[in-house]
């Protein structure tokens, strides 16, 4: 897989991880906020229950006091005691619950004042009844603005309840919003993660396509290469075959040439005249067996030696004076033949043999590269 593809996939996964972490953190925060909102809803319910419970306690206490006044039943008195304790607890809790709600707190304090006044009245009636001071009881009850006092408590409780209900609706709305936010966050995160996963899939898919394309191109290149190799192999085989034929022909030609050379050598060797092949500078480069036979020296002793070490022109016989220039060298330099010149060959033992010398220039195309000297042993004169 290509490096940049791996980087892209890693990048996508990092994004997915980041989204998951963000959603998790945000969801936990929202859940915490939601729980706090729920606490506030419960808190508001408690206040509503407490103030309404207080109203109920006041009514119950009034009823119990009247019952005690009428029947003198100790259970009614004990009931009053419980109710007062319960009322005290409920109002105390309501007061503490509304510690941070200034308006409601003030109303609760006002309610506590009203309730305490009512409790004090009830206690005074109970005390008078317990001491059988019926006159006092009668006057207390006669002067009691019970209904009005209860109405005032009821009105205040209704007001607090109404306000708390508004707070309840507001807090429930906040709690609902938190829930909705959590839901939206989670679903958005899930959707985003799906999109990112789709992105990962796309990157992998495009990489697979690219790899397939590259593999196809490679296969095509391989096929082309194989074709070229095949073609080149065929060409090489053809060239090799041609070369083999040429080699064969060349070998045949060489064999023919060798054969011709050998044949020429045989011809030269079979001649009884002495034959010298000279270089341009008049040194011996080749001889035939007749030379070895007459001179008595082996070819290695003669090759590269000047012709003059074996043969010299016989000036006496030719009737000419000694020349300043060697006529043989001059003839070669000029590319001329010299025929039947009297000469003397000196063998190994110093014996001299009169011969007639003929020299031919040896040409390679138009250029004189050497010469051929043929010596014929002169017939003995009487």
């Amino acid at each position: 897989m290509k490096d940049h593809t791996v980087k892209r996939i890693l990048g996508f996964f990092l994004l997915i991880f980041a989204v998951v972490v963000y959603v998790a953190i945000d969801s936990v925060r929202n859940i915490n906020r939601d729980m706090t909102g729920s606490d506030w809803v419960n808190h508001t319910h408690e206040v509503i229950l407490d103030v309404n419970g207080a109203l109920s306690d006041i009514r119950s206490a009034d009823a119990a006091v009247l019952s005690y006044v009428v029947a003198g039943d100790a259970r009614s008195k004990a009931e009053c005691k419980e109710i007062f304790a319960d009322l005290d607890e409920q109002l105390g809790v309501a007061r503490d619950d509304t510690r941070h709600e200034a308006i409601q707190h003030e109303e609760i304090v006002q309610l506590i004042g009203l309730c305490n006044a009512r409790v004090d009245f009830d206690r005074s009636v109970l005390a008078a009844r317990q001491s059988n001071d019926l006159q006092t009881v009668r006057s207390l009850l006669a002067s009691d603005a019970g209904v009005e006092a209860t109405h005032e408590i009821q009105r205040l409780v209704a007001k607090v309840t109404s306000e708390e209900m508004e707070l309840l609706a507001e807090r429930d709305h906040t709690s609902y919003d938190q829930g909705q936010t959590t839901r939206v966050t989670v679903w958005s995160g899930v959707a985003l993660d799906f999109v990112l996963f789709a992105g990962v899939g796309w990157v992998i898919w495009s990489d697979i396509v690219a790899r397939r394309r590259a593999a196809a191109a490679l296969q095509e290149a391989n096929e082309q290469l194989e074709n070229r190799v095949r073609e080149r192999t065929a060409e090489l085989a053809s060239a090799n075959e041609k070369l083999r034929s040429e080699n064969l022909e060349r070998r045949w030609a060489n064999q023919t040439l060798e054969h011709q050379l050998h044949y020429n050598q045989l011809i030269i060797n079979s001649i009884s005249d002495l034959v010298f092949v000279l270089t341009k500078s008049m040194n011996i480069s080749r001889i035939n067996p007749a030379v070895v036979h007459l001179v008595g020296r082996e070819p290695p002793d003669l090759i590269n030696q000047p012709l003059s070490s074996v043969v010299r022109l016989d000036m006496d016989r030719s009737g000419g004076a000694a020349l300043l220039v060697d006529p043989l060298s001059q003839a070669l330099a000029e590319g001329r033949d010299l025929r039947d010149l009297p000469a003397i060959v000196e063998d190994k033992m110093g014996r001299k043999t009169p011969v007639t010398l003929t020299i031919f220039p040896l040409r390679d195309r138009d250029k004189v590269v050497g010469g051929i000297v043929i010596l014929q042993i002169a017939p003995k004169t009487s």
Partner: protein
Amino acid sequence: MTAAGNRFTAPRLVAASLVFALALSPLRAVTVNELLTVSPMTPRHFANYFEDFEFVLFDQVQDPEVFLSTQRGNCQDYAILGDYVLGRRGYDTHLVHVRMVGQIAHDVCYITQSDSFLDYNLRSYYRNLERSGPTVREIASRVAEMFKSNWTSASEFTYTYEEGVKRMTFTVVKTDPPAEDPDYRAAK
């Protein structure tokens, strides 16, 4: 057989086992006076006396002798008796009244020395004390957790059998910042 060997004869071993069993699980009802005098008396020892008690809901706090003799009662009977007995046995105890959503308020007795509270719902021999921090907020949270419920407010209160009335010392409201709790500074 030596004199030392005679000390552990079979009948004596059986008698000792019976005494030990009786001490662990009293067959007869215990009295308040016994609770105030028996040794040792730790919160765990106290709780062990209530393993077989039944739960019955009453409007009022029962007389402790009635509670012990009938072996029937509820959280407030148990917490208040625990506060009464352990308080007199040298323990620093606090009564806590926890209000929860949709539940009857629950009372527990916190014992500072053991960092735990007595709860009538936990009366088994193996688990009869619940560990908690010392603040009312921590105790309320732990109680609500045990009930799998939310608490709204909790109060520390006092109770005397003579007066028969719960007196709220202070109240902690869940939605208030913890730093504003009356017992926050003392706990920290």
